């Protein structure tokens, strides 16, 4: 149990250590950490569900771009802001559904399917936009990524809401329970009479919807529908899940773990910025953290059995 809290403890120690860094505790800095990590955090919530079913979604970076672009285009065409946001989310959900459908119906490994859809979705996004960003967005849209509600960034409330939703889905619904069962032992789940394909597809669609929302947050922060947005984000989202105790073998993962994992990466990036450490080193440090986190987790599991 003590070791299970390791990611949590790491986050607290990291936070405490950063308190000694000048400017870290300033309101501007803290809210910028929250805003910066919100996009990865939201994607990582969806990725958590997918990884629990022992799947993976490499296409989330591309989905983010397509969701953000289509949402921005909808608003450019004159749709109200909420409808634009809904367009982004729906686009993501559809892309996710496609991933789930291909994985379950063609019975192809999700790594391969989403590697393929990564290319397809990114390519289509570029085709639709002709490679050009969309700028004609109503000014009020910036509230989503940059606004403040009751003294804290609006995205934090949004993240909390999404976190609670995914937590509820995982812990208190049939969908979540089946997800754990499928990821833990797909054969046993099939033999238990679970409609595996339906639930796996649903989970990919939910992951896509959350990614679409993340795309809207990104678009709002940049005030641009950027067809090249989100490149490499999939790896950060996967890293957040894994640092937070999710297992790529499936059957393990939690919302709180993933959020902690994403914040650890966010704080590391922010801390090294403040300390003037080169972003080149940041990449190397985060890579090392991933390997460290997973090997500690492996040791815990082996000693537990």
């Amino acid at each position, binding site marked *: 149990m003590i070791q299970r809290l390791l990611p949590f403890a790491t986050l607290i120690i990291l936070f405490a250590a950063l308190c000694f860094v000048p400017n870290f505790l300033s309101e501007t800095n803290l809210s910028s950490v929250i805003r910066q990590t919100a996009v990865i955090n939201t994607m990582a919530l969806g990725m958590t569900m997918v990884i629990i079913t022992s799947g993976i979604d490499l296409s989330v970076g591309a989905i983010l771009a397509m969701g953000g672009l289509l949402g921005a285009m909808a608003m450019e065409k004159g749709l109200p802001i909420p409808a634009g946001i809904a367009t982004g989310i729906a686009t993501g959900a559809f892309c996710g559904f496609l991933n789930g459908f291909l994985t379950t119906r063609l019975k192809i490994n999700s790594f391969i399917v989403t590697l393929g859809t990564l290319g397809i979705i990114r390519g289509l996004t570029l085709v639709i936009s002709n490679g050009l960003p969309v700028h004609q967005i109503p000014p009020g849209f910036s509230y989503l990524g940059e606004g403040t509600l009751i003294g804290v960034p609006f995205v934090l409330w949004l993240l909390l809401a999404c976190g609670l939703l995914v937590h509820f889905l995982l812990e*208190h*619904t*049939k*969908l979540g*329970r*089946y997800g*754990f*069962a499928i990821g*833990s*032992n797909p*054969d*046993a*789940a*099939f*033999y*238990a*009479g*679970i*409609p595996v394909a339906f639930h796996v597809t649903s989970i990919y669609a939910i992951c896509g919807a959350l990614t679409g929302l993340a795309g809207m947050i990104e678009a709002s922060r940049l005030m641009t529908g950027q067809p090249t947005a989100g490149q490499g984000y999939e790896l950060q989202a996967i890293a957040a899940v894994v640092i937070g105790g999710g297992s790529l073998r499936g*059957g*393990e993962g939690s919302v709180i773990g993933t959020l902690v994992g994403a914040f650890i990466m966010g704080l590391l990036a922010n801390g090294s910025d403040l300390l003037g450490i080169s972003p080149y080193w940041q990449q190397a440090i985060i890579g090392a953290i991933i390997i460290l986190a997973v090997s500690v987790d492996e040791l815990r599991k082996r000693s537990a*059995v």
Partner: protein
Amino acid sequence: MLLELKSVQKRFGGVTALRDGSLSVRAGEVHLLMGENGAGKSTLMKIVAGMQGLDSGEMLLRGQPVRFANPKEAAAAGIAMVHQESLLAPHLTVGENIFLGREDLAPFGVIRRSAIMERAARLIESHGFPLRADWRVEKLSPAGRQLVEICRAIASNASLLIFDEPTSSLSESETREVFQIVRTLKQQGAGVIYITHRLEELRTVGDHVTILRDGATVHSCPLADLSRSQLIQHMVGRDLGALYQREPIPPGKPLLELRHLQRAKILHDLSLTIRAGEIVGLAGLMGAGRTELCRAIFGIDPLDSGLILVDNQPLPLHSPRDAVSAGIALIPEDRQRTGLATQLPVGWNLTLSSLSAHSRFGILNSSLLAATESRFIDRLRIKTAGPTQKSVRLSGGNQQKIVIAKWVAQGARVFLFDEPTRGIDVGAKTEVFEVMDSLARDGAAILMVSSELPELIQIADRILVMRQGRIAGELPRHTTQEEIMALAAFEQEELSL
């Protein structure tokens, strides 16, 4: 004496596979090794072939004590084994597989591929096998792979060859060719050990027979000295003990009916009926199609034709889902792989198949779930620290009870138990039988597949015996192990002799 094994013992964890395995094989002799499923034949042979170590006992090869650390050492000593399950490299060709690990090498480890393929082609041709050296093994049928295994063993020029039931998947002409090979090997002075369930096939080639039972050698003599009934007696003499006594109840209406089930090469015109309150035993040798029958009823494997009725309703059986919604439950043979998500909590496994009844609009009712979990933990006396304990920590017997409870909670009425007592200790076996009995009393129809003949005799109301995908016959309650074995192992014509 070519090979001598004296009092060999082998344990796997807490399970004793061999207590007292002894065997003597002469050069130029075909030695049959017989025994029931699980008697220890394959374990004994794996020790000889260096695939497993032995815990105690002696192994002498040409009078010299030997122990093999791995198959390579055994091969170097002139021992080759034809395995029951194919151990070939599927992506390589037939020829490459035949000479795998014994390739002709040019300098710097370069393989002389053409030389290998030519030798393989000659070998295949000389036996008239329907194979080609350049075919990839993954494309071959089980029979084809078996023939490759046989070629591989012959090509090694071994002085001792072990055949582990090689003919179960072969056609008649292929079987004859295998016997011809065995005869040739014998004339060349090699020793042959041949594991088989089917004595009738080997009357013509065998010289000597050794019979194993419950991990010990019980009899060894020239084959000609032993009649079939004597042989069966030695094979089945497993202790009946006082496991469990069950009083059958008068059966109700038919719950499960199978009509003319057909699946190419696996099930042939198979019909049976199980009534409410009945426990029907299903006996048969390995490969008779018992597990395959369960899989077909449960909608895992498709049928070519035939009808499955539950409660007089014909079923569309395309997936386990269809079977589950019709009230069929499968307690699979391979609990760890297909019965349980072992890494998940006990409670989650218990309710996995009944979540719909425990939820509304997809939202789980946790107090209802908790009630069901503790009710079944109590009712089936599952020994666990609580519903949140990981299932993997429980003993085999308690894991089995979780699998059963999962289906009872789901409301199943037809239960297919596939080897329900495998890997379970004696006390837990009795508890599993008690659960089966109480299910029957509550009106369930139960099919119990088992290789443990004493258990079948004590639990089942009647026993069906399968042989080569067919129901070979039906025996009443309190039949004998000999009668079951006679039906399972021998052709009808032979019996009437």
